């Protein structure tokens, strides 16, 4: 795997929330989903993901319950809470503004050079 991106601190939480906005998933589904979306460029240890999940659960942004997978295995399913959804919206806006500003500055610098 070439050209791996390491995550900016705090980004993983938003990405998890975004993933869960599509519906309840267990931990492995979330990883797979993120890997698919990033085209395999996301460099994050699986354990970091679980820590993020538990952290979010503690803050009440997501909730968890045990459920069954299609293969009839017991798995812990996470879903967004109402506060989690609101938090995702706010964070998304903030991130987009931030990246917009950063790329504006970086892009402009390239043109004048």
């Amino acid at each position, binding site marked *: 795997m070439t050209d791996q991106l390491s995550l900016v601190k705090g980004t993983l939480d938003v990405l998890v929330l975004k993933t869960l906005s599509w519906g309840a998933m267990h931990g492995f589904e979330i990883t797979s989903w993120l890997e698919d979306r990033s085209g395999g460029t996301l460099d994050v240890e699986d354990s970091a993901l679980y820590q993020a999940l538990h952290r979010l659960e*503690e803050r009440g942004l997501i909730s968890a319950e045990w459920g069954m997978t299609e293969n009839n295995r017991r*798995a812990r399913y996470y879903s967004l809470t109402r506060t989690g959804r609101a938090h995702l919206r706010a964070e998304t806006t903030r991130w987009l503004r931030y990246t917009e500003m950063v790329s504006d500055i970086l892009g402009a610098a390239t043109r004048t050079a």
Partner: protein
Amino acid sequence: MLPPRARRFFRLAIHRRALLAREVDDEIAFHLDARAAQLVARQMSPDDARAEALRRFGDVDAARHTLNRSATRREARMKLREIVANSWQDLRYAARGIRRSPGFAAAVILTLALGIGANATMFGVVDRLLLRPPAGVVAPNEVNRVYLTTANGFQGLQLGSNQSYRRYLDLAQHVHTTQDIAAHYERERVFGVGEGARQERTSFVTGSFWPLIGVHPVLGRFFNESEDQLPQGTPVAVLGYGYWQSQFGGRSDVLGRTLRIGGTDYTIIGVTPPGFSGLSLQSVAAFIPLTAGAADMFAEFGPNVKWSEQYRVGWLQTIVRRKPGVSVQTATADMTNAFRQSIETQRAVEPAGLLASNKMNAQATLGSVLESRGPRRSQSATVSLWLMAVSGLVLLMACANVANLLIARALRRRREIAIRQAIGVSRARLLAQLLTESTLLALLGGVAGVLVAHWGGALLRSVLLPNLDWSTGIFDHRVLVFAGVVALGAGLVTGLAPIRQLANTDVASALRSGGRGTSLRSSRLRRTLLVVQGAVSVVLLVGAGLFVRSFRNVRALDLGFTPEHVLAIGVTTRGTPLDTVQKEQLAQAMVERAVTLPNVQHASRGLTVPFSSEWTQPIVVPGVDSSRLRDFFYVVPVGADYLATMGTRLVSGRTITDADRAGSEPVVVLSQSAAQHIWPGANPIGRCIKLQATTPCLTVIGTAQDIRASFQDEPSLQLYVPIAQQPQPEIRLFVRVRGDAAKSIEPVRRSLQELMPGAAYVNADPLEDFVASEFRSWRLGATMFTIFGLLALLVAAVGLYSVVAYDVSQRTQEIGVRVALGATAGTVIRLVLADGVRVVAFGLVLGGIVALAFANHVTPLLYHITGKDPVTYAFVVLVLLAVALMASLAPALRASRVDPNIALRAE
């Protein structure tokens, strides 16, 4: 409790740590499996896939640790939220329950309010007298009052807190285990001059008093030992906070001003903090150096009293602060030693009246800083403890009653509770709900109780302890805390009663019977409570009856004089000492002035005040064997018109007049009993009595009605002698006024004050006050027992009503059947009434037995009545039966209106 999985389903906290860890492990294991499966699906060998999965996961152990910690935190928060939510729910449930049955709630709250209020009131008093150390005393446990005991030959051991200044100096010199030693003395002194002069409580303290106590002035400074030196100290005064506020408006420019106390002008140098009254329970207007106050005060007693030198002039009390680490025992031994050394010094200068050293048995005792806890406990303190016990009894009754009400209510709600159990509410939750309800009720009762204590406290202050300084309030935080604790305790105790009943509820049968159906066991418990309540009511009401009758007996007693309209007038001579002749003249002038006043009927000189002071001695009668005569007769020097002033009838002969002057024939008027005692059956007029063998004959000129100089059973043997023939260095007047004596005090006092030379001061008090203070204990007993007895009766009546009413509601069907079978309304009423009365009858018998058992203990406290007074007992029986009938009547009438059609159809 729900199984963990079900709890998880409802998002409820799982209370097991191991389970949490397993969940974390499961989640990690699942992830690794899923990852490996994914890799295998991408053509990786299973072993490689497993390794790759682990590699991608990272440090498993570290992750497990972090995840576990975060899971635990999450759980804890969930648990807390659950508890808060449950409690809130319980509280709302309880509040809803209370709103739904306001009558029940009112009964419970009122009952508890009375019980808690009575206890909070009594606690306030007991706290003030016996528990709370005096305000402002630093480390009160190190401070002791010193009591000295000696054998004095004829009275056995004599306990004294009155010590001479000389003794204090000796003790201070010889004692080694104390850090500070001080002396103090308190009395009323006249403040100010002229018409504005008033008597105020004054404390004489040594300069060492202030460092011993450790208090600091709010204004100015305290005096020190150099200002408290013989012979007469420095005239400086420290004001009490209350006096400073009321007389000087709390102004700081009061420092340096002078204040006349007694016969001396004192310079004000400081103010004590609020609430500080030295070691006294009464508020003190001013503190002055002991030597300064004593020099002024003893000047009034004449030059023969050498207060600073003589050991026999005992008046002050010594207090000490022990050195750190010195036990009371050690300090007591040391003080006893110092006392014995002091006695030996005394033997050298003042041997009169001292026994031999080995017979003295001299002993020092170090008592609590609280006088009420020392060896000389006041009557009020004893009575307060006693009343505290009685009020505790009332509280127990109130709790029993509330328990009864709650049981009845719980039984009525059996169906509701069964439903809750059936849908899976746990026992623990039900318990919490019931306890929340009873505790909420009890706390509301506590709040109402504090209000009761507020008013009750005012009553108590006026009846029980009128002289106490309550400026810091009976209502401090300790009383509030006490009320709160009692309320919580009552809530728990009463809340637990119905739980025992419900714990055994069989859900199915409760649902089937539709909440009806009596439990025999519970009914027995409730009846037992009622019997006990009835018994307590009987005991308290018997007590009330006995004290009320005693009080009435005391009031109805013919004293032989009528104190209601009489003022007792005295003079405090300050500064300019008067000799006996000047005092005679002044007293005579006062009598002459008094009789000219519009409201005054009679006025006369006297010396002793009945119920307060006396002059008693044996007499000598020529021709009569003195061993046959009583040891003491009351000698009463009087002016003309004395008998008329006091309202005592002359029986035979003539009374004392102004013609009986010094130099004329010495005469005496006897009380009838005295005459009978000396010359039984003979006419005493013209016979001779001598006060001492060597003094001349007093010729008997008349006899007067008997009087009682105390509430002793025997009328006292009185000898009225003309005061002009027995000159006294004391000014005492009695004035009979029309109407209310209290209203005449000021006009009379002001008019007589005009005659006063120098700074002398007139004080006037209703004679009734002297008498009333003698029967205060009966009035107190009558008042408090009546209040507590009526409280108990009310509580018992409410309890009986609730039980009978409940039984009637339970027996509706049975009564319906009876009516259907031909029972008349009268039969039904009799049936229910008999039921209530039967319970009370048991209580009557039980309470009667208890009261009789205590009868002998209470008899000495009564007056002209025994503790087994049949009238009182009969009266209490009648009252209780009447109350029982009344309490049962309403439910009985309801029962008689049962319509058999409706009652039977409800089945």
